[in-house]
């Protein structure tokens, strides 16, 4: 199929008549590009997963689990809410959720940008490995658990145990933090951090002042950070 003409009218999938498999198969065309509209997602799982081409996918409605999982290159915009694990293991590209996201948004994501317009619930950015996540609202408990690289920006509040067992990811929170997880501490906001945050907010099209945020990171006191433990095994 020839699908690389970006000027072509958008492809349209209505998930009340087309299957998720048909949609995803089309999106798996490695030479694909251009706009794809998806209507009536009705909370179905695994919509637009595994894309590795510069598609622009627009989904009109609420989606179920793992939407835009493993995304590479594509921009996926959800005009609604997301179930568990939106953009999990994203490699690159952008995923924009206009509503709220359920648990484990952006879990293990390695690259790209995830923007959540509403709130994200528990475990947002769990085991984050290099992607950036910007949440306009608040995040639930255990967010950024064991996060290794990348940034989590929260414009609202953060729930219990933020950044528990954190590695090198950076957390920026504007509102209240219910509690910090093990080894997560507040850190000084230096110029480089203000600059990084400004760029992330701009990329996410969020109008907020970086100076209103606090930075949190790892105190590097847990077992894995102790040089004496390196030779144990």
């Amino acid at each position: 199929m020839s699908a690389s003409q970006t000027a072509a009218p958008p492809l349209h999938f209505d998930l009340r008549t087309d299957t998720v498999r048909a949609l995803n198969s089309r999106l798996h065309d490695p030479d694909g590009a251009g706009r794809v509209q998806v209507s009536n997602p009705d909370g179905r799982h695994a919509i637009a997963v595994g894309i590795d081409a510069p598609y622009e996918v627009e989904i009109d409605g609420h989606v179920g689990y793992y939407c835009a999982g493993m995304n590479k290159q594509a921009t996926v915009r959800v005009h609604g809410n997301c179930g568990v694990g939106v953009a999990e293991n994203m490699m690159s590209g952008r995923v924009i959720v206009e509503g709220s996201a359920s648990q484990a948004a952006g879990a293990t994501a390695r690259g790209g940008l995830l923007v959540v317009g509403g709130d994200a619930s528990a475990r947002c950015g769990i085991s984050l490995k290099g992607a950036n996540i910007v949440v306009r609202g608040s995040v639930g408990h255990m967010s950024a658990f064991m996060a290794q690289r990348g940034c989590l920006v929260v414009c609202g509040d953060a729930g219990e145990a933020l950044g528990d067992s954190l590695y090198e990811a950076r957390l920026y929170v504007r509102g209240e933090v219910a509690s910090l997880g093990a080894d997560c501490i507040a850190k000084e906001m230096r110029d480089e951090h203000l600059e990084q945050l400004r760029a992330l907010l701009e990329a996410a099209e969020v109008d907020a002042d970086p100076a209103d945020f606090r930075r949190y990171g790892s105190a590097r006191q847990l077992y894995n950070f102790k040089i004496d433990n390196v030779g144990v095994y």
Partner: protein
Amino acid sequence: MCGIAGIYTKTEALRSQLGDCLARMLGELSSRGPDSAGAAFYRDPAPEGWCKVSLYSPQVDAWPWIADALGARFEQARLAGVRATHAIVDVAAEAEEVSAWLLEAHPELTLMSAGRTIEIYKQAGLPSQFVRDFDLAGIEGSHALGHTRMATESRVTTEHSHPFSTGLDLCLVHNGSLSNHNRLRRTLTREGIRIQTDNDTEVAAGYLTWRMREGASLEQALEGCLEDLDGFYTFAVGTAEGFAVLRDPIACKPAVMAETDEWVAMASEYRAIAVLPGAEDAVTWEPEPGRVYSWGTAVVA
């Protein structure tokens, strides 16, 4: 994994579609729980001074005589309806008295629920089969809870299916598993709470019954779960007036809630809400862990 669903109607028009709404919700949740399915409907109240019991017997021809036997014992009783293996009987007596007599005189029957408005139906097997066998789509009422089960803690039988009755006009459906149910079952049994199976959810139902017997409101009893139950749970509790929802503080199990001018609904996943009329315009949100949500005047005195 299991699936749970609840719907509370706000308009007269939707009451006639209650069973159809719940049937469609259960259809979407079938993949979360293909072992068994069940439902509690709140409908058609028994007359003043009467009660209503839901009975289960695998022998389908068992019903006319039980209404006669109840009539003989309590002066008046009538068979209000039969659906598959279940019968609803209205009896001119207090629900506690009728329940006690049934358990004593007819241990071969399973008492699924008692009260003035609740009816419980459940069956091992695919949810779609349950919906067909019980003609669920034809049931009218004010509100309903449903469950699709994927068993982890105990056997797959009709008796082990949800909802579990937790007292008069009360029932519980559960997604999750409890770790301390064996110890809690012993405690509750000592307190005189009757538990019929080795199912973990039935212990949670018994716990709510016990707390409310001791004077707690439904809300207080649910808050007690946060302290006394160890494990994972999203609970939905049905009452004569509405329903309540609670998730464990770690939020291991999913839940979505939604509201329009016509209904309030909860489900394990949004796809089970998407089948309701006007769902695309509903306000939807994820209930916070460790917080009791309730609709109707869902607090029992």
